[in-house]
Structures are given as structure tokens and as C-alpha cells.
């Protein structure tokens, strides 16, 4: 067996799925609006990467530059090692694209359009299987303009993956979907990942990024302001919390003294204690030994994880929409 780097699902020795450096894009000529402002992003192969940010953060512009739709005003962009504009003819058969909306003849039937898209590729996925998987069977003969918004979204997703691409760009794949359709989409994305397809998706749903992504890039104001696995992002930076329960009315002053300066202690409810600060093994040991000194056996002791939502709020000072 050839040795592989441990714990990495990614394939070394090939160009990254996406490599963006110093990307700048402005719109308008008289009073240009900067949509992307010095964005750096590297997407490794073989995982799901979520570009997470509020509307207007520059997610779609970035993705559409990677798809070859727009030229950057500055910076370099490589997708599968290719220039999306100059090498478009070589790149396009290898990527799958789901636009935020539209993309289908209003008079085309759902199945007809999917079969058509399949026939533009050398070795497409079985269309019937894809229709079943995405629950499009009941509307296969319905023309696009009569499909519901959710059905239109799922058809666009099917069209993006039917050609067996190496890399798929999904621009807000679950916007406007009901929970059931949303889960069908998530399952499909997970299956793409299992089968070795690289996926880049944009979303403004925290739970979507947490559920699906191996790697999250938080985008705000046209830049990547943080990138990492959901766990890394939730651990790092933000102030963390440790909670434990014990006898009510413990004197916390001695605990406070034993902890680092920036920590706080409180008993928000009788017998329920909260410690904030940098939660690391050292802090846990301090709390445990303080409990031992005071003859307290905590019923529970838990490190409270921050959600991506908290991280985002901390980083941007903004709530995400949706």
C-alpha cells in the first residue's frame, strides 16, 4: 500500500481545486463599487468548502470569477490549476456550475433539460437515478416556468453534477428550499464528497456550513476574514465558556484568584457555575483541583462550544440573514 498523509482525504501532488490571491473586483465605471477587495482563498481538493457570509459580501462575485464569467481587476485565480478565462475551453468540461437562479429555457421540461445537459458530457451520471435522488420524478414533464422555486433549485443542482465534474460550484444551493428538499440537497453534497468530488458552495446559513463543510471561509466586505474547519473556527479567537454544577453558594473568590486574569466566574443560577476565559486543559485542571479542595464533586462539567454564528458575530459584528 502506498503511504498517504495521515488523516487527509485530500490528494497531494495536484493543483488545489481553487487558488485565489489578491483578488479585486469592482463594478461600475463612474463611482465603482468594490465587490471583492483583496481576497485570498485556497480550496484543497476532495472536500466541501463553504463560503459563508451575508448578502453582498462578495461570495457570488468570487465564485463567478472562478467559473470564468468575469475577469478580475487585480489578483490571480487558478481553478484546477487553470486560468478560468484563458483556459476556459479546457476547464469547463471539468467543473459543474449551479447559478443562484435561472439557467433553463422557460419552455423546457425538467427531465428534457437534464437529459440535454447530460448529453453535452462524455460520461454523464444516470439521469433517472439523479431524478429519483432529488425528488424530481413527479415534475419531469413539467416545463421550467411551471416548476416551484424548490424544484427549479433541485434541477439546477442536478444539471451541475450530471457531467461527473471534478469540482462543483453551488451558489446558495438551498436558498428557498423546504426542510425536506434541503436535506435531500445536503445528502447529495455529502455523497459528492464521498465520491471524491470537490465542492465549493456559498451560503448564508450557519447550520449548512456546520453540517456540510470540511472547510469554512468567512467572507465579509470582499475579503476572507477567517478560514478553517468549523471546529477550528469555533475554538479559536472567541472567548469560551466552561460550565459545571455543584453545591449551591460556593465561594468563587478563590477560584477567580487561581485562574488567569482575563477570566470571570459566576453562579447564574443556584448550583450552576460559569467560568469564561480561554478554555484550555490548564483551565480545566485549575477548576477540577479547586473543586477537589472545596470537596465538590461536579455533577457535570462541560466546555461550551461556540457556534459558527457566535464566531461570525464576533468577527463581523453582524447577524447573518436567514
Amino acid at each position, binding site marked *: 500500500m502506498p503511504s498517504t498523509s495521515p488523516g487527509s482525504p485530500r490528494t497531494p501532488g495536484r493543483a488545489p481545486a481553487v487558488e485565489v490571491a489578491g483578488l479585486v473586483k469592482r463594478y461600475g465605471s463612474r463611482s465603482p463599487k468594490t465587490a471583492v477587495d483583496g481576497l485570498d482563498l485556497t480550496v484543497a481538493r476532495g472536500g466541501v468548502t463553504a463560503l459563508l457570509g451575508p448578502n453582498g459580501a462578495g461570495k457570488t462575485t468570487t465564485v463567478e470569477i472562478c467559473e470564468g464569467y468575469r475577469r478580475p481587476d487585480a489578483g490571480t485565480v487558478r481553478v484546477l490549476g487553470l486560468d478560468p478565462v484563458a483556459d476556459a475551453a479546457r476547464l469547463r468540461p471539468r467543473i459543474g456550475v449551479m447559478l443562484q437562479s435561472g439557467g433553463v*429555457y422557460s419552455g423546457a421540461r425538467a427531465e428534457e433539460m437534464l437529459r440535454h445537459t447530460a448529453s453535452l458530457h462524455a460520461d454523464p451520471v444516470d439521469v433517472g437515478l439523479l431524478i429519483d435522488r432529488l425528488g424530481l420524478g413527479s415534475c419531469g414533464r413539467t416545463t421550467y416556468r411551471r416548476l416551484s422555486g424548490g424544484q427549479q433549485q433541485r434541477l439546477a443542482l442536478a444539471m451541475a453534477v450530471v457531467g461527473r*465534474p471534478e469540482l462543483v460550484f453551488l451558489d446558495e444551493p438551498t436558498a428557498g428550499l423546504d426542510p425536506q428538499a434541503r436535506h435531500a440537497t445536503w445528502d447529495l453534497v455529502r455523497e459528492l464528497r464521498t465520491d471524491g468530488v470537490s465542492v465549493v458552495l456559498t451560503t448564508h446559513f450557519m447550520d449548512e456550513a456546520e453540517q456540510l463543510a470540511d472547510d469554512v471561509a468567512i467572507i465579509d466586505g470582499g475579503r476572507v476574514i477567517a478560514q478553517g474547519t468549523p471546529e477550528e473556527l469555533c475554538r479559536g479567537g472567541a472567548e469560551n465558556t466552561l460550565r459545571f454544577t455543584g453545591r449551591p453558594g460556593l465561594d468563587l473568590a478563590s477560584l477567580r484568584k487561581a485562574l488567569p486574569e482575563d477570566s470571570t466566574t459566576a453562579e447564574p443560577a443556584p448550583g450552576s457555575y460559569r467560568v469564561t476565559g480561554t478554555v484550555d486543559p490548564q483551565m480545566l485542571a485549575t477548576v477540577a483541583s479547586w473543586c477537589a479542595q472545596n470537596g465538590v464533586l461536579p455533577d457535570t462539567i462541560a466546555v461550551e462550544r461556540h457556534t459558527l454564528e457566535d464566531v461570525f458575530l464576533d468577527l463581523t459584528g453582524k447577524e447573518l440573514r436567514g
Partner: protein
Amino acid sequence: MTAIGTFTPRPGAAPLARMIRVQAALETRMLLRNGEQLLLTVVIPTLLLVLFSAVDIIDTGAGSTVDFLAPGVLALAVMSTAFTGQAIATGFERRYGVLKRLAASPLPRWGLMTAKTCAVLVTEVLQIVLLTVVALALGWSPQGNPLAVAALLVLGTAAFSGLGLLMAGTLRAEATLAAANLVFLLLLVGGGVIVPLTKFPEAAQTVLGLLPISALSDGLRAVLQHGAALPWGDLGILAVWAVLGLGAAARFFRWE
């Protein structure tokens, strides 16, 4: 080694000929499925042919009325598909991101344009067959060389396609819809289709004679009604329109 999954990447474009063929077939189905388009491309030309042949409304000069009308209606059919229909359809495809999405597919842009042209030509063939049958039933006796007719139809298609695509690629879809219909109506009246240009004042005749629809209907009439060999003047006018229209469309067409 992992098992081959449903989505295990095996990317690649289909052979170019197959892509263009399936795209042309799809474009043709979209054209023929659209009710408003059929009204424009089939119903109106057929009605005009039947109505004006049967009822003597317009003085069409010497000879039988249908011999005058049939070439004009054939020119109208070409204009309805290559210009009006194509402009409206392409304008809405642009508006709804169809062109944008296709641009991300393995089909190159020139392949898409080739497929669109094929769809226009197939529709025109169907129109011409239908209108010819109706005209023959009305007593039409066409003259001239079929190759000269084909040359006129092809150049006319090129001229109207260029103008239609220019409109679709630069205006908003709603504006294209309105303008394409208005132009259709104006050229129907002022382009020698059913009203001979000689009915207009002399100064107007010179200008109207330079319109692509006038050149096409006049050229078709010269061959089919009068048995002319090759109407070089009309072919020249159509060629100029084709070069200008297609050139401007290539230069100014915006894909989204």
C-alpha cells in the same frame, strides 16, 4: 482503492458534433413549442397569403395576385423566424440566465450560435414547405432557378439573424419583445411584402428599397415571379446588412 461511486469524477465534453446536434434539436423544439412564436412564424404569414390572394384588396400590378404575394410572404417568413422570433427568444434566454449557464457547459459559444442558426434554418424549411403548399393550392406558378432562391434566403437569414441577435444582446428582454414586434409590423407594411413599394412616394421608395426585407422580397419576386437569374442588387444589399448586423452583434452582444 475506493469503489466507483455514482459521482466519481469522470469529466469530459461530448464530441463536438453531438453537442451541436443535440443543442440544435433542443433550440428547434423550444421555437416550435412556443405558441406566440408560432403565431408570428406560421399563422400570420399563412393568413396573409390566403386572405390577400382571395380578396382583391391591394392592386398588385399585372399578373396573378398570388404570384406577387407568395415571394413577399416567403420573405416575411424568413424575417419572422430569423429576426423577430430569434430576437425575442434569445433576449429572454439572456434575461433568464440560459445563455450564462450554457456558457459554463462544454459547448463552446460558437457551437451554441451554430445550433441556433440550425434551429432557425429548420424552422424556415418547415415554413417554406407549408407556405409553398398553400400558395400552390392558391394557383401559384413559381419561375426561376431554385439555387437563386436559396442564395437569397440564406443571405436574408444571415442579415436578419445579425439584426435580431444585436437587439437581443444589447436591449432588455422586454424592450426586445416590444421593438422586435414593432419592427416586424413596420417592415411588413413598408417592405414590399404585401404592399408594392411603387405605392409609396418616390423619395420613400429609394430608402425603403434599401431595407433588408425589401431587398429579400424584391429579389425573391424578381426570380420567382419574373424568372430573373441572380438579382445582384438585392443580394448585395442583403450581404451588406448581413456583414453589418453580424459584425455589430459579435461586437456588442452581452451574454448576461
